[in-house]
């Protein structure tokens, strides 16, 4: 099926700044519509000001163009529904760790706190150094167990 082939192609498009994870695993794909007019892809930006969006758009078009029957490919960024960090898939969470980035922290409902495990040693004995990191979607943390600084995906939810 054409749809499966397009999805396969989309799976090869990685986050330009975290090349272990695909845009599907990041939870960015909202809609894939295949009609006689062409292939329409709707993606959710993680953060509105993300400078990688245009690169992702270009990479998606390049990847999907490889699929023989795919024609008239359009890529649109939409913000409804909003991307939230719980959209990162289970496999995606593992891929982030491979890159040395902790997946989005878990929200502990009872205390209102967030908990992020160290991607290197797995310890929960971590502290937040800076909410803001090298890119809009990441924070900087420190592991008190293995004494490594690391980054984590910033938690984003509609509760905020």
């Amino acid at each position, binding site marked *: 099926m054409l749809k499966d082939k397009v999805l396969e192609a989309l799976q090869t498009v990685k986050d330009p700044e975290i090349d272990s994870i695909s845009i599907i695993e990041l939870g960015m794909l909202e809609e894939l519509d295949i009609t006689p007019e062409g292939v329409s892809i709707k993606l959710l930006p993680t953060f509105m*000001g993300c400078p990688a969006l245009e690169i992702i758009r270009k990479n998606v078009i390049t990847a999907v163009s490889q699929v023989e029957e795919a024609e008239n490919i359009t890529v649109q960024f939409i913000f409804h529904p909003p991307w939230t960090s719980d959209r990162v898939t289970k496999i995606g969470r593992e891929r982030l760790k491979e890159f040395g980035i902790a997946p989005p922290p878990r929200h502990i409902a009872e205390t209102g706190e967030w908990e992020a495990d160290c991607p290197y040693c797995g310890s929960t004995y971590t502290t937040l150094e*800076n909410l*803001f990191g090298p890119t809009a979607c990441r924070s900087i943390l420190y592991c008190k167990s293995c004494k490594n600084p690391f980054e984590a995906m910033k938690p984003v939810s509609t509760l905020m």
Partner: protein
Amino acid sequence: MTHTLVDALKDECYHNSAIELLFQLADDDFILSYRGSEWLGLAPHIEEDVAFSSISQDTMGHAAMFYQLLQDLGAGDADELAHVRSAGERKNAVLLEKVNGLGTYLAEPHYDWAFAVVRNYFYAQAKKIKIESLKNSSYQPLAEAAVKVSMELYYHLLHWKTWFTQLMDAGGEARTRMESAIKIVLDDLDGLFSLGNSGPELTKHSLIDSEDTLRAAWVNRMSPVFESVNFNIPEKFGMKNGNGRNGEHTVDLKSALDILGEVYNLDPAASW
């Protein structure tokens, strides 16, 4: 009543009001993120440099989204709206266009960190109030955008509130400088809540709450913070340097736009 893009395009009066409000929102974020970017490399420490530039990047992203909504409504190309409009056409609040302090980015930038903290904190809270209101806006694309902006703004507000309370509680020179900065910001604070001459129209169309409601919500949210740092805010805020919503601006905006648009205007057709 909820309006989609298609509905808005059919109703001229509503259409004009939606455009008016979007220009205010877009221009506010656009100019403040520019002022924020001028702090790059100059913030008090490296962690703050990382944080402040990230906040400015988010804020520019919000401006870009509002300009995109304007483009969807037929107001013009988003990039042109951001770069080419003259100072007189801008709708941002005057408070947000003011220079960061003495000097310029390239020569002797003696910027005022107290002013940066106060301006950004007071603005982030005012923006949060507006965004909460916009979640219920009659213009559906704007209501949806507000949900997205709100999630990012949460971190901005947390950040500036931390700076504000810590510097206010520090006493000594920090307290003195913070109090002078508050005075300067309060002199033009009302411009943030103003919806300009078209304010009543915007509220009539249920695009956003009224100025009075927005201002009261801000005071309500800020009062416990001021109380915690032993500071009394005056009953009334000013609009000393004019109402930006009606196109009144200072020379600071003109010089900022000249620098901002310098590269773009060299070759407007270039693809970046």
